Each structure stands twice: as C-alpha cells, then as structure tokens.
C-alpha cells in the first residue's frame, strides 16, 4: 500500500493523473470518432456507388487491421508527413507531433469506424413512416435529419455506442507504446523503477475495471433518460 501513497514516495498521485489522462484521451477519441461517423454514415447509406464504396472502404479497412497498426502508422508516418509538408514551405527542422493528438486521432479513427456501423444500423431501423411523414409535412431534408432522424438515431444507438465506448477505453491502453503517460504507461514506468510489475499491472487492471464499471453505470442512467418517452 505504501507504493500507492500520494506524494514523492508513492505512485498514487501519478497513477491518478494517468487515469485522468486515459479518460481524457478516451473522450477525445470518442468525439473524433463521432465526427468521422457523422461523415461516413451518410456515405455508407448513399445510393451513389462511389460514395458508398468510400464509406465501405473506411469501415472495412479500419475494422480489418490491428489497432496498433493504425497507431504506428499515424505516429511514425504522421511525423514524416507533417515534416514533408513543412519542408515544402521551407522548414527543415524536426517536428514532433504531440502524443496526445496522434493518440486521440488514431483511436478516434478506429472508434469512428465502429460508430459508423452503429449509426448506420440505427438509421436503418428507424421506421420508414417517419421519413415519409416528415416529407408529407413538407419538412426540408436538412431539418428532417436534425429534428426527426438524429434524435431517434441517437436513442436507438445508445446500447451499441456503450460497447464502442468500452472498446475505445480499452484501446487507449495501446497509445502507451507512443509514450503518452496514461494508465498503462505509468504502470510500466512504476513497474520498471520499483521492480514490482505484478503489483502495478494489477493496479492498472483494477483501474480499467473501475473505469468500465463506472461508465456502464453512467450509460445505463443515460439510457433510461433517453427512453423516457417510450
């Protein structure tokens, strides 16, 4: 227990900050994923063959390759790409992209692919009458989406989005390979300097369990709230 005390002697405060970092990266990744999902869901549902193909390529490729690969590609490739672009503008120095940004972006791209599938499923399960009724009432397409389809889509997708959130939360542990100090990285450092890996990785496991447990509780509350009218 001494190892977990707060202050200079223990790892309690470091691990606490690392937990906050994990939560921050997960939320950022989830938000980035939503942006991707809102772009690619219409593409996947589109009747245009080319747009459809683009949407399908995104979800198939991202869900078919390991998460670690996406992270490495962005981490190693991203720096090179940014430096290449900078060199066109005449800057030849070394540019290091923030680990938080690459990490959140990489996990966001992955969780976006899962969210896209969830949203697609939700829209497909909305009753056709809803679309027809709003058309009959003369509601414009854009307003139809925001006021009629989107609220229903969100309600229907909450149970599956909670799965996506769990996956995203666990995937953030992979960002530790890029050096971002979240739970996994901090445990690795602590385990290395105290030579007690069993203890610190157990603590990491418990922290992740607590996070998944708490998020389940919160999501269940949300679900009840969103289902009020039904």
């Amino acid at each position, binding site marked *: 227990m001494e190892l977990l005390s707060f202050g200079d002697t223990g790892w309690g405060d470091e691990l606490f900050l690392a937990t906050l970092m994990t939560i921050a990266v997960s939320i950022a990744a989830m938000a980035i994923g939503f942006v991707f999902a809102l772009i690619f869901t219409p593409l996947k549902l589109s009747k245009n063959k080319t747009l459809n193909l683009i949407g399908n390529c995104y979800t198939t490729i991202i869900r078919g390759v*390991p998460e670690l690969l996406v992270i490495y590609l962005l981490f190693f490739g991203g720096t090179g790409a940014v430096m290449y672009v900078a060199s066109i503008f005449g800057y030849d120095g070394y540019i290091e992209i923030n680990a938080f940004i690459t990490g959140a972006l990489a996990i966001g791209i992955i969780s976006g692919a899962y969210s896209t599938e969830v949203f697609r499923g939700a829209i497909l399960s909305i009753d056709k009458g809803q679309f027809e009724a709003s058309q009959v009432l003369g509601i414009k397409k854009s307003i139809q989406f925001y006021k009629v389809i989107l609220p229903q889509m969100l309600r229907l997708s909450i149970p599956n989005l909670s799965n996506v959130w769990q996956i995203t939360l666990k995937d953030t542990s992979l960002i530790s390979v890029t050096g971002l100090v979240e739970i996994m990285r901090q445990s690795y450092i602590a385990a290395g300097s105290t030579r007690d890996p*069993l203890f610190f990785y157990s603590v990491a*496991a418990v922290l992740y369990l607590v996070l998944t447990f708490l998020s389940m509780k919160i999501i269940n509350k949300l679900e009840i709230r969103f289902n009020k009218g039904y």
Partner: protein
Amino acid sequence: MISIFPSLLNGTVITFKLLISSMFFGLLIGLFFAILRINNNPLINKFAYGYSYFFRGTPLLVQLYLIYYGLANIEFLRNSFLWVVIREPYWCAIIAFSLNTGAYTSEILRSAFQTIKEGYIEAAQSLGVSKKITFYKIQIPIAIKQSLPAYGNEIILMLKGTSLASVITIMDLMGEARKVNVLTFKPFEAFITAGIIYLFLTFIIHNIVKYLEKKYGFQT
C-alpha cells in the same frame, strides 16, 4: 519494396501460429466457462462471471503484461517447472490471448445455450434421452451452430489482438513491420504492407466463416 516481403511473410507465419493456438485453447476455456455460467450453483456461476468480467473489462495489453512481466515476479513460480513456460514470451502471449478470447467465447456460447428453444430439450426428455446425452448431442452442437457468426467476429478480433505480441519482443507480422520501419525509416511501406496482409487474413477468415455458416448454419 519487394525486399521487405520475405521478413513480413515470416512474421505472418508466426501471427498465424499464435492465432491458431490461442483460438484452440480459447475455445476449450470458453466452453468450460460457458458450462459453468449456465450452472445453477450461484458460487460457480459468480466465479465464471467474474472471470469473464475481468478479461472483458481490462485491455488485452494489461493482461499480456501481467502474465509476461507479472508472473515472472513470483518467486514460487520461478522455482517451479512452470518457469520453462512463462519465461518464453511466445507462451506468455498464447496464455494471455487464450484467456482473453476464452472470456469472450464463454459469453458467446452462454448466450447461445440460453437461446436454445426449450422444445428441443423437452423433446429429448420425452424421448427418454438422458440429460448427459441431451447436453453433449443436442445442446452443444446447437450452441456451436448458433454462435458461428459471433464467433467469426471473435476470430477476427483475436487476429488483430495477436499484433500485441510484438510489444513483448515476438517477431510476428506487426513486429516484423516495426523492424522494417526502424531499419528503413519507411513507415508507410512497412505498415501499409503489413496492413494489407492483415486485411487479406481478415478477408479469408470472414469467407471461411461465411461458408461454414451456409453449410452448417442453424436456420430458425
């Protein structure tokens, strides 16, 4: 570009071996825990639930580190015959992956067991088939058939999971790609080629499962 292929193919073989062995042990573990889960004894039931909760609630990387770095820390294990197994990163990876996929498989099989129509079991009972034979000859085959689509997804998830073996020094496909990246400073070539191989493997697994579903799938 062509010169990196042989090393990546070597890595693919390792990835494939890791996948096959962890899926095999995972299926056994999953079946075992699924049977415990449908048991009526609350204690056994809770134990099986705890197992699947732990392995589904924590990242695979934590489990891998716990087994690879953590177990080696226990003096008792280091002096026992088990040390031969847990000092090898390859076996640690297989243990971690098997336990992980076992937890997911147990959930898949459990839900399959629970959705078996009562009628089948009642029919077997009225024909005088013993409980044991009903379980082995009726419930298990139906459960396996019903869980094929979900299990196919689990195989693909595990294929992606095996890439984590590279962080504990195993030269699987991901490890080889990392080595190529370090040696050549060409991240795009290395990782995109590896990505294409992974996609190809996913594609093959997907189609095999689809074929099995068509052939043995359970029509309700």
